[in-house]
């Protein structure tokens, strides 16, 4: 595609400019993809180059190093201790001892079991004392997988620490060679509240995140490649084992699978994903625009009792969602207040089954979106109020002099400004709504039931999102953890794709900080 200069571009008539923009967007896609591939390639190459550099540095440090440095290659922290840095040295040594001890006592065992996830399941043994059969436990797949992953983490951490230990020797030698003094243990402790304060501050939060988020996510991603479910729970019954990509094949195949109802998993997945995206779109944008309108109404010049209107709406944020959502779901029940009210008014003569009528899936879906407006507007109103007040007044004054009408001021200034500022928020809000478990689960529980997609393994409803489906698979009668894990990975892929596309399509999002 031919690139044109700015002035040439501006000279084009309006529709051609649009066409040029669209064309150049599509023309940029191969370049962007190629750029991404190149970046990944470079990253991998960089990784290997980095490893190469590290290894050569390790070797050269050994060759040129003094005796304490050389001993440190085997006895971690020896160099530190030999140079008087007792605190560091002892910590290094302690870590090494713990690591070796762990690997001998447990780590080696878990690691060796990891490829098979256990060979011998529980056996029934006759207990002479109790005169009954009891289980004798042998291998436990769950534990093998968990501790296997943990052991790998530990090994990586050890290699890193070992490397740090060597680098410290090298640096210490350089410092001593230049005639300066090394840091004492006291200095090290002091730096924890000063130069290295960030390490102190991050230690606790990052440990929590690694143990309770990173590790579980890696574990669950691995589960997608096993047959871990209620009957293969790797604990009291049968072991589970690696199945490769079987689960992904199941999920993405178009042949009906009895465990997934009368239609194929791929069809169900497609339906649920489509609804999830539709839901996320409407849930995000209806709230966004209506919330903005309410905020503008309240903030309009001459409207009194601004604080009261705002407080009424804000109050509804405070009330725990399970109360309001459960109550509202009952209001919309067949014998609920809503139907009673509508019948009293004579608008309908038969109660509407908002969430139960499988023949009208869209009734339930639209109702859910409408109720979500009720939930979301107060929050959006607050946010929009803050932003609207931040829009410099002189923009409007300038626009008035330029001849913009009220509507034009809104459409040409307020709205673009809001979108511009809240771009990142809209993205997180969209992905947040895709995973909005509470609203769907408490309002409808996924109802009405989609019979073609439901089976003994669990129900799937027309208002189910991927996330509530995931929950149902997990807690369903068969506890198909492996399938839940596949769905979870799919959710990740979809969300990540959307995020990636939005980030690359809207450059303003990247530099949102410049805007302020």
């Amino acid at each position, binding site marked *: 595609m031919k690139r044109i200069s700015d002035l040439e571009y501006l000279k084009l008539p309006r529709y051609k400019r649009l066409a040029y923009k669209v064309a150049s967007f599509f023309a940029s896609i191969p370049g962007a993809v190629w750029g991404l591939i190149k970046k990944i390639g470079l990253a991998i190459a960089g990784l290997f180059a980095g490893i190469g550099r590290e290894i050569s540095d390790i070797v050269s440090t050994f060759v040129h190093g003094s005796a304490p440095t050389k001993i440190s290659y085997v006895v971690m922290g020896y160099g530190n201790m030999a140079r008087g840095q007792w605190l560091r040295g002892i910590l290094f040594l302690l870590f090494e001892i713990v690591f070796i001890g762990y690997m001998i006592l447990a780590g080696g065992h878990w690691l060796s079991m990891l490829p098979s996830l256990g060979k011998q399941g529980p056996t029934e043994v006759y207990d002479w004392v109790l005169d009954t059969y009891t289980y004798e436990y042998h291998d436990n797949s769950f534990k093998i997988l*968990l501790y296997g992953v943990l052991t790998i983490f530990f090994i990586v951490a050890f290699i890193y620490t070992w490397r740090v230990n060597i680098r410290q020797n090298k640096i210490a030698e350089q410092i001593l060679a230049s005639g300066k003094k090394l840091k004492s243990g006291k200095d090290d402790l*002091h730096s924890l*509240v*000063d130069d290295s*304060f*960030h390490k102190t*501050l991050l230690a*606790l*939060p*990052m440990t*929590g*995140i690694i143990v*309770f*988020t*990173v590790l*579980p*996510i890696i*574990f*669950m991603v691995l589960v997608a490649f096993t047959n871990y479910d209620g009957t293969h729970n790797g604990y009291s019954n049968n072991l589970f084992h690696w199945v490769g990509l079987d689960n992904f094949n199941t999920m993405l195949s178009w042949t009906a699978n009895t465990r997934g109802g009368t239609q194929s998993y791929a069809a169900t997945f497609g339906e649920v994903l489509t609804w999830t995206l539709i839901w996320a779109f409407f849930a995000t944008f209806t709230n966004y625009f209506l919330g903005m309108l*309410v905020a503008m109404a309240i903030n*309009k010049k001459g*409207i009194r009792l601004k604080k009261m209107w705002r*407080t*009424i*709406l*804000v*109050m509804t*944020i*405070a*009330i725990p969602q*399970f*109360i309001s959502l459960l*109550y509202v779901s*009952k*209001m919309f*029940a067949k014998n609920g*207040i809503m*139907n009673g009210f509508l019948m009293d008014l004579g608008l309908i003569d038969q109660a509407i089954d908002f969430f139960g009528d499988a023949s009208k899936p869209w009734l339930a879906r639209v109702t859910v979106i409408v109720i979500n407006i*009720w939930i979301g507007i107060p929050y959006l109103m*607050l946010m929009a*109020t*803050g*932003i609207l007040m*931040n829009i410099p007044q002189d923009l409007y004054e300038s626009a008035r002099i330029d001849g913009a009408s009220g509507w034009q001021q809104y459409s040409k200034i307020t709205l673009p400004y809001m979108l511009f*500022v809240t771009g990142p*928020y809209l993205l997180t809000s969209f992905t947040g709504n895709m*995973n909005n*478990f*509470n609203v769907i689960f408490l309002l409808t529980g996924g109802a009405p039931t989609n019979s073609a997609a439901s089976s003994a393994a669990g129900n799937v409803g027309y208002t189910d999102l*991927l996330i509530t489906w*995931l*929950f149902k698979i*997990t*807690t369903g009668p068969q506890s198909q*953890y492996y399938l*839940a894990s596949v769905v*979870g990975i799919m*959710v*990740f892929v979809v969300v*990540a794709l959307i995020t990636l596309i939005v980030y690359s399509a809207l450059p303003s999002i990247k530099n949102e900080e410049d805007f302020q």
Partner: protein
Amino acid sequence: MNTAAPVKRHMGLRASRRAANTAIYVVLIAISVIWLIPFICILLQSFRVESTNEVGYVVPHVWGFDNYVNLAKTDFWRWYRNTFVIAICVAVFQTVIVLCMSYTLSRFRFKMRKPIMKLMLVLSLFPGMLTMIILYRVLADIGLTQANAVPGLILVYIASSGMGYYVSKGFFDTISKSLDEAARVDGATRLKVLVKIILPLSKPIVIYTILTAFMAPWGDFVFARYISMGTSKGMNVAVGMYNWLNKDQIGSRYTMFCAGGVLVALPVTILFLMLQRYYVEGVTGGAVKG
């Protein structure tokens, strides 16, 4: 407005402005009614005596405190206490963790800063529910589920709370770095800078963090339900009261649900309205910052 200029046009402008405002008032009143009705209904029905089931009308025929009294016959107060304990612990620890995380990422420039922020972004793209199964199994192994679900839940809530650093980082970013630098030049350590300079300036965001951390456990449902696994002793209010609206219980527990709902909502709402100002600052600041 008594100018020598034509008066007629002025009045025209004014009248149309007044008409627009009247329309807005009508809309605002309608909105207020729609938003308040469910809560008014809950309040009214919690005083209903004649029937404990769902009915098609709102105003009770017979008024009384029966439902509130009857709550004592259930596990309600135990759930209430559980939730309160969780909320307090989470509010304290989560605030500390979030502030540590966001302050560090806002103020320090170190090698791992960008990678950590990228990692947080990637992690946040995974549905949190995915990890529920393994967390349950691990907690079960150390005996922190079912009857002991309360400490287990606290652990789960606070462990990953560092990921919610974004809003307060945005706030810290707005505090001028020259303050840090001035204090550093004056000889303060990084710890002193945080405690003596930054925290006193961060009252709004600290309160916002405490408030949101305190409120979240009152509404959490999924994890609480999974980890308590049907054991009433370890439930929070959301899980416990959710069951009251089951098909087989709703007939006898519906008005009790309303009464319980009022008791749960009241303290949280009052606290919230008192600290509303800080909440608003957090929401708007966080949204603009992303």
